[in-house]
C-alpha cells in the first residue's frame, strides 16, 4: 500500500521584489516619544567595527536570497548620519560587493539636524546615498524643546539647506498634534518645510507609544482628537495645493518621488534586515518567514560573533497572511490590484471575499473587478477596516 503525503505548498509562483534595511542603533539622545530601537551613545561607538559586523550579518543572510536583486536600500536608526563618511563608504561598497543592486536603486539614509556638516553630506552622496530623510519634526523652538529634540529651528533650516544642496531627493519628517500646538502652528511648520523644496514629506500624528517617556509622563496640552483631526485635514489640503500626492496614510510625495523602499513594505514585498533589532521578511517556495535580530547593540554584536544575529525566526501562518497583506496594502491610497493578493500570499481570493464585501458595504473600500482601494472614509478609519481581516484564534 502506498501512502500519499500531501505537503501543503504556499502557492507562491513568483517572489516579490527584495529590499535591504540597515539599522544604525545610536542617537545623541533618546527622544521621549521615540519607540524605535535607538540607544544613547554615551560610551561612543566604533562605527567601522559596526559596519564590519553589518557586512558579516549580510553575508550570513545571503543564502536565503541567493541570486535575487536588491531594489532599494534604507539606512535607518537611530541616527545614521552620526556615522563617519568612511564607515558609510565601507558599508555601501560592502553591500554592492555582496548583493546585486538594481540599476538606479534608491539608497536612503536617515539624518537628524544637529549632525549636519556640509563636507560630511557631500561624502555621503559620493559614497552612493541618493536620498535623504531628515527628521525635523517641527520648526517651532518651543515644540522642539518639548519633544526633547537636540536641535533648534535654526539648525533645522541649516540641515535642510545642506541636504538639498547635495541631494535632489529629500524627505522631511514632521509631526503634528504636538503638546500645546495650534492649527496655525502646525500649518506654519508645513509652510517652512515646503519652502525648502523637499520632494517628499511625512506628516505623523504624534502617537504616545507604550514604553516611552511620554507614555509614563504624558505631556501637557496634547490637542484633543477633534483638533488633531482638524490639523490633519488642513495639512492634507495644503500639501495637495503644493502638488504633493497623498499616497500613504502619513506619506506625501511629488510625482515620481514616492519612497520606493517604503512602498515595497506596503506592497508586501520582501526585505532583508541587518543590524541591531532589524526585521526581515523573506518569501520562498516554503512560505513567508519573519526574522528579528537582537535589539541591544552589544547583544547583537555578541550573537553575530557567535555565528547568528537572529533572535527570533518565525514562519507566518497562512491564516495570518490576509491580515498582514491588508495591513500594508490598504495604507496605500491607490490600494492594490486583486491579482497581487494571490501573488504575494499564495492564497486564493476566496480567503478575503466575505471581508471585502463587508468592508464595501460599510463604505470603507471601493472595488472594481480587478482593483481594491480604501475610500477616504476607509483611510480615516483604517483600523476599523483592518480589524475585519483579523482572525479570531
Amino acid at each position, binding site marked *: 500500500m502506498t501512502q500519499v503525503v500531501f505537503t501543503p505548498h504556499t502557492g507562491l509562483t513568483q517572489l516579490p521584489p527584495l529590499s535591504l*534595511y540597515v539599522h544604525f542603533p545610536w542617537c545623541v539622545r533618546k527622544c521621549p516619544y521615540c519607540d524605535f530601537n535607538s540607544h544613547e551613545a554615551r560610551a561612543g561607538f566604533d562605527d567601522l567595527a559596526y559596519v564590519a559586523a553589518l557586512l558579516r550579518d549580510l553575508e550570513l543572510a545571503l543564502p536565503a536570497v541567493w541570486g535575487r536583486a536588491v531594489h532599494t536600500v534604507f539606512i535607518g536608526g537611530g541616527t545614521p548620519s552620526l556615522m563617519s563618511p568612511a564607515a558609510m563608504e565601507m558599508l555601501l561598497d560592502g553591500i554592492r560587493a555582496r548583493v546585486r543592486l538594481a540599476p538606479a536603486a534608491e539608497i536612503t539614509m536617515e539624518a537628524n539636524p544637529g549632525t549636519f556638516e556640509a563636507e560630511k553630506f557631500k561624502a555621503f552622496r559620493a559614497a552612493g546615498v541618493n536620498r535623504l530623510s531628515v527628521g525635523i519634526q517641527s520648526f517651532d523652538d518651543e515644540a522642539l524643546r518639548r519633544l526633547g529634540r537636540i536641535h533648534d529651528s535654526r539648525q533645522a533650516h541649516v540641515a535642510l539647506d545642506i541636504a538639498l544642496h547635495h541631494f535632489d531627493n529629500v524627505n522631511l519628517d514632521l509631526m503634528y498634534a504636538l503638546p500645546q500646538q495650534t492649527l496655525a502652528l502646525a500649518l506654519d511648520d508645513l509652510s517652512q518645510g515646503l519652502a525648502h523644496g523637499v520632494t517628499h514629506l511625512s506628516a*505623523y*500624528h*504624534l*502617537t504616545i507609544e507604550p514604553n516611552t517617556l511620554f507614555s509614563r509622563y504624558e505631556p501637557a496640552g496634547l490637542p484633543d*482628537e*477633534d483638533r*488633531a*483631526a482638524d490639523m*490633519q485635514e488642513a495639512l492634507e489640503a495644503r500639501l495637495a495645493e503644493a502638488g504633493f500626492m497623498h499616497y500613504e*496614510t*502619513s506619506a506625501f510625495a511629488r510625482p515620481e518621488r514616492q519612497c520606493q523602499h*517604503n512602498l515595497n*513594505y506596503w506592497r508586501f514585498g520582501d*526585505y532583508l*534586515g541587518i543590524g541591531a*533589532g*532589524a*526585521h*526581515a*521578511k523573506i518569501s520562498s517556495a516554503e512560505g513567508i518567514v*519573519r526574522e*528579528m535580530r537582537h535589539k541591544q547593540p552589544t547583544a547583537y554584536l555578541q550573537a553575530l560573533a557567535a555565528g547568528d544575529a537572529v533572535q527570533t525566526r518565525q514562519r507566518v501562518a497562512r491564516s495570518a497572511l490576509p*491580515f*498582514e497583506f491588508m*495591513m*500594508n496594502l490598504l*495604507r496605500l491610497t491607490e490600494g492594490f490590484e486583486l491579482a497581487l493578493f494571490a501573488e504575494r500570499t499564495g492564497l486564493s481570493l476566496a480567503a478575503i471575499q466575505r471581508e471585502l464585501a463587508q468592508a464595501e458595504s*460599510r463604505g470603507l473600500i471601493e472595488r472594481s473587478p480587478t482593483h481594491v482601494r480604501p475610500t477616504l*472614509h476607509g*483611510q*480615516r*478609519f*483604517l*483600523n*476599523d477596516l*483592518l*480589524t475585519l481581516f*483579523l482572525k479570531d484564534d
Partner: protein
Amino acid sequence: MKHIRNFSIIAHIDHGKSTLADRFIQYCGGLDAREMSAQVLDSMDIEKERGITIKAQTAALQYRARDGEVYHLNLIDTPGHVDFSYEVSRSLSACEGALLVVDASQGVEAQTVANCYTAIELGVEVVPVLNKIDLPSAEPERVSQEIEDIIGIEAVDAVRASAKSGIGIEDILETVVSKIPAPVGDPDAPLKALIIDSWFDNYVGVVMLVRVVDGTLRPKDKIKFMATGAEHLCEQVGVFTPKSVQRDSLSAGQVGFIIAGIKELKSAKVGDTITLVSKPAVAALPGFKEVKPQVFAGLYPVESHDYDSLRDALEKLQLNDASLQFEPEVSQALGFGFRCGFLGLLHLEIVQERLEREFDMDLITTAPTVVYQVLMKDGELIEVENPSRLPDLSKIDEIREPIITSTILVPQDYVGAVMTLCNQKRGVQRNMQYMGRQVMLTYEMPMNEVVMDFFDKLKSTSRGYASLDYEFKEFQTADLVKLDILVNSEKVDALSLIVHRATSVYRGRELAAKMRELIPRQMFDIAIQAAIGSHIIARETVKALRKNVLAKCYGGDITRKKKLLEKQKAGKKRMKQVGNVEIPQAAFLAILQVGDK
C-alpha cells in the same frame, strides 16, 4: 435533651458574626488548626469577600461548661441580608435562642432590628453580645442603651467580647448555656422536622439541614414532605461538627442533616415539615411560605454563541439556589438570553458575580425591575416582569406596582436628608420614632424606586450610616408609563423602563445624557433619544470619531501593530452590536447611574 442548646447569631454584615462562629468551633474543638481556614461557616468565595452569609450552615459543638456538665450546642448560621429574610425566619424558628451581636462602636442597624423582631415574635430568647470591644472607638454603655431603646431587651449585662482577639468567648458560651432554654419536644411523638436549609451535593443529591421538633428519625424510615406531599426513603442522618458525621438517629431537640436520594432542590423547600409516612404528624409546623422572586433582570451573553453555556451555568446555580428563577427570553437588541427572578438586589448581584467569576461568563445585565400587575380593558389581569413586554397603553385599564414597607434606621444628623430622598422616591411616611441617637423611619414606597438606586443613594446621603429593611405590602394602582430609548432611531427593547409619569421626563433626559457618556464615539454620529409612546422627550448625540488609524507602520512594526489592533478588536467584542452601533455593557445599566455626579 436538657443538655442541648439550639441557637443562632443575629448580626449586621461586618459586625463579626462569622468570626465569632469560628471562635466557638475552635474553642469547642470542632476542627483542628489545619482545617480551620478563616471563616469556616462562610464557604463560598463571594461570602468570604463580602462577609455575607448566604446559605445557612451549622455546627454541632461539645462544650464542657463551668458546672462540669457537657452541653451539645447547635449553632445555626443565618443569612445576613434583607433579600433572605424568609430564610432567616426559618433558621430562627429552629432555635430556642439567638445571640444578638452588635458592633460596640457602630451600634444597632435596621437589618439587625428586623431580625431581632422576627426572633422575638417567634419566641426566641435574644441574648445581647457587644463585639469588637477592644477597638478604641468602642462605646459599650451607649450601644447597650441603644439596644434597650430600639429593641427593648435588657442589655446592661450584655457580654463584652472581641471575636477577633478571642476575648469573652467562654463568657458567651456560658451565657448560651444559662440563658437559652433547652428544647422541649417529645421523641416518641409523630415526627415533625423543620427544613432550615437545603442544598445540592454532587455525590449524594439534596442535603437537608433540619431541626427535629418532635419524634425521632432513623435511616430506612420512609419520610413525607408535608407541603409538597412527596415521599422519600431516608438514607442517612447526621450532624455537622462542622464536618459531617453520620448518626444512628436524630430526635426531638436536635439539629442535623438528612439525605434521602432527592435529585431536585425544589422537592426540599426551606420551611417545609418532614414527617414519617408510617406515623404522620397531624399538622405541619407553622410559617411555611413559597418564596417568590421580587426583582427581575435580563441576563444575556455578550457573545450569542455563549447562550448554551449561560443556560448550563444558571442550571448549576439553581441546583443550590432554589429561589433563583429563569426562563428564556429574546430581545431584539441583545438576542437570546434569560429573564431571571431574584429575591432582591443583593441576590441579583451575587448570581451575576458567580456567573462571571465561577463560570467565566461575559454578561450584559439589563436594569432590574419589579413585577407589575396590569389590568387589561378586557378584565384580564397579567403580570409584567419585563418593561418591553408592557402591552399597548390603549388596551390597559390600569397598572399596579408593588409597594413595600421600609424601615430605615439612621443617626439623627442625617434624618432630613434621608426624608428628602424618600420623598423623591415617592415614599409616604408612616412613622418616625426617636430611639436614642438614632431615628427609625417607616415609609411606604414603590418597590421599583428601591430597586433602581435607592440603596446606593441612601448610603451616600447618610455617609453609610443608614440601614434599611423592607417587606412587600401590596400592589397599588399608579400612573406609570413606559420609557423607551432609541439608538439611531431603533428602539432598544433592553433599555425600556417603567417609570412614574411625574418623573418620566426627567428620567428620560438624564438617561439619554448618561448613555451619551457611556457609548464611545464611533465612525458615525449616534443619536440617542428617549421616548414615551411616540413622543420624543430627549435627544443626545454621540459625535462621530474623526479617524482611527495608526500613523506609522513600516517593515519592523508588523507584530506590534497587529497586537494593538487585536486589542482594539477585543475591546469591541465586549460591546453589543445594536444595529450598527456598538454599545458597552455598562450602558445597559445606565439608569442606575442617573443622577450621580
